[in-house]
């Protein structure tokens, strides 16, 4: 029987949420292709105890894997793949996976299908969908190489299952690793300057993107935020440019927010931004491009020039508030 193997990533000792989403993708793929599902993670066996129905649960254990390195993970995963001979190997599309999975695929003579959002089956061919042009277009891919086919799954693309006791005893797998083969020396993770604004509890957020064009124009959205009584946030390029402080950045490398209202002004809606604000109750987008990906998740949209729409909106809100 063929196998779908899912590599989970630990966060504070247990599989991360996006890993469980990748596991859900793996379960769907296994069902569709008549395969069995296996899961593996670097870490202790106890962390794999609530993954539901599996054909195998594998804890990968080695002192040289205590701290993540691309060399260590590539070697360990290559050995596990050689042992299990899976047809598909799935990963969550995390920074860690981006760092080592292309290397692993190359070592196996394959190409990783990265950041996949969906799959479909026609005959015996599985077609994988991934985004192009920062979400403005979808591409449909299939693998023309023999197994294994390596795939990483985008955050939020699949729904994680509720935890349930793992149906099989957890096996442990000890790869053969040499410390001399690990060439990078990782330091401890640290956080930049302390956060003074907590956007995560803000009920109303006005967020500005590169459509604002120039630092001097930031006052336009500041006035809108003030009229609305909202916090001001931004996409990454705005904070990189120093137009607003880093702590106001929303997205995968910034803050995650879930306000009642998220008003996105001149933001295209790249996935790295969306993961930080998708949980908002109501999303409003103002963008001159009717095909901007932000409209795919917006409740209300205004297609137009923000330099006309924003002042009009600020005036209308002031008037409504009296």
């Amino acid at each position: 029987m063929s196998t779908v193997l899912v590599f989970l990533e630990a966060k504070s000792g247990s599989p991360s949420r996006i890993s469980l989403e990748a596991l859900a993708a793996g379960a769907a793929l296994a069902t569709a292709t008549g395969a069995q599902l296996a899961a593996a993670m670097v870490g202790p066996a106890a962390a794999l105890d609530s993954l539901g129905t599996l054909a195998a649960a594998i804890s990968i254990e080695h002192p040289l894997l205590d701290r993540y390195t691309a060399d260590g993970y590539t070697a360990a995963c290559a050995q596990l793949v050689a042992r299990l001979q899976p047809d598909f190997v799935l990963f969550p599309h995390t920074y860690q996976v981006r760092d080592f999975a292309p290397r692993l695929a190359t070592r196996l003579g394959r190409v990783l299908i990265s950041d996949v959002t969906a799959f479909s089956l026609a005959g015996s061919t599985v077609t994988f969908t991934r985004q192009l042009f920062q979400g403005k277009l979808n591409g449909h891919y299939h693998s023309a190489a023999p197994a294994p086919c390596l795939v990483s799954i985008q955050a939020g693309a699949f729904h994680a299952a509720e935890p349930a006791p793992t149906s099989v005893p957890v096996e442990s797998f000890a790869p053969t690793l040499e410390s001399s083969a690990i060439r990078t020396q990782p330091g401890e993770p640290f956080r930049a300057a302390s956060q003074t604004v907590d956007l995560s509890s803000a009920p109303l957020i006005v967020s500005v993107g590169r459509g604002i064009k120039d630092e001097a124009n930031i006052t336009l959205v500041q006035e809108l935020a003030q009229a609305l009584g909202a916090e001001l946030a931004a996409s990454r390029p705005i904070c990189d440019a120093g137009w607003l402080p880093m702590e106001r950045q929303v997205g995968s490398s910034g803050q995650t927010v879930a306000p009642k209202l998220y008003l996105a002004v001149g933001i295209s809606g790249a996935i790295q931004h969306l993961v930080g604000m998708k949980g908002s109750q109501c999303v409003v987008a103002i963008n001159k491009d009717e095909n901007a990906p932000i409209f795919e998740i917006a409740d209300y949209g205004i297609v137009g020039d923000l330099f006309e729409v924003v002042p009009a909106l600020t005036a209308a809100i002031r008037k409504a508030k009296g």
Partner: protein
Amino acid sequence: MKIIVAIKQVPERDARIRIDSSGRWIALDDIEFRMNESDAYALEEALLLKEAHGGEVIVLSAGPERVGQTIREALAKGADRGIHIASDSLASLDALGVARLMAAAIADEHPDLILTGLQSDDLGLGQTGVILAELLGIPHSSLILKIEKIESGLRLLRELEDGWFQHITLPTPALLTIQSGNTKLRYATLMGIKKAKTKELRTVDAASLGTGSQPSLLLDSVALPSRQKTTQMLPGSPAEAAAALVAKLQQEVRVL
């Protein structure tokens, strides 16, 4: 330090996305091209290292003839020479195929450091650099914001998720993929643009590199994404749309 920077030419950020008649890519006829964003930051890091420690910066780009323009732009900013892997059919390759071309084209260069962008703005694979490192048998690190030369090699600042960072050290030769946004990009000076015209730009025909193999990943078709939510579009003049939105915010979203 001898540094190679891989630079990809991609469609302009605001380019209109129209699917071409093959249904497998976008129509390119009325599109402007530019340097991939994170590659511009990779180039900047290379130029800063050269200014601090001396050495040579070589830019490497694969693509059709128009790619020469982007290479010249990098030369105008201060790179010393360029290598253009000429190919009109890169789209038929997968990331491994492109990385193999790059590895073959620089086989005689023996650089201390190779920099690539984190990911391309068109394909967004985020892989070509890491694959190249494995092909060359050298260590790599990705999502790098800052590079510092130290006795044993390099000390790096790497971005992690949710606003976390870490330092990493590794020996050279090495490959790094550079994340956008950590420095200010320089502009080419008039002098630089003039000088670029006299700098060496070597063109290598992709077919002559002998890496030809069947791709293991095929792009069958492209499509415009469908909406996950039904967005209510508020039409009209800016004032009308603004008034309509205020009404929604009062009556439906109830935040006003």
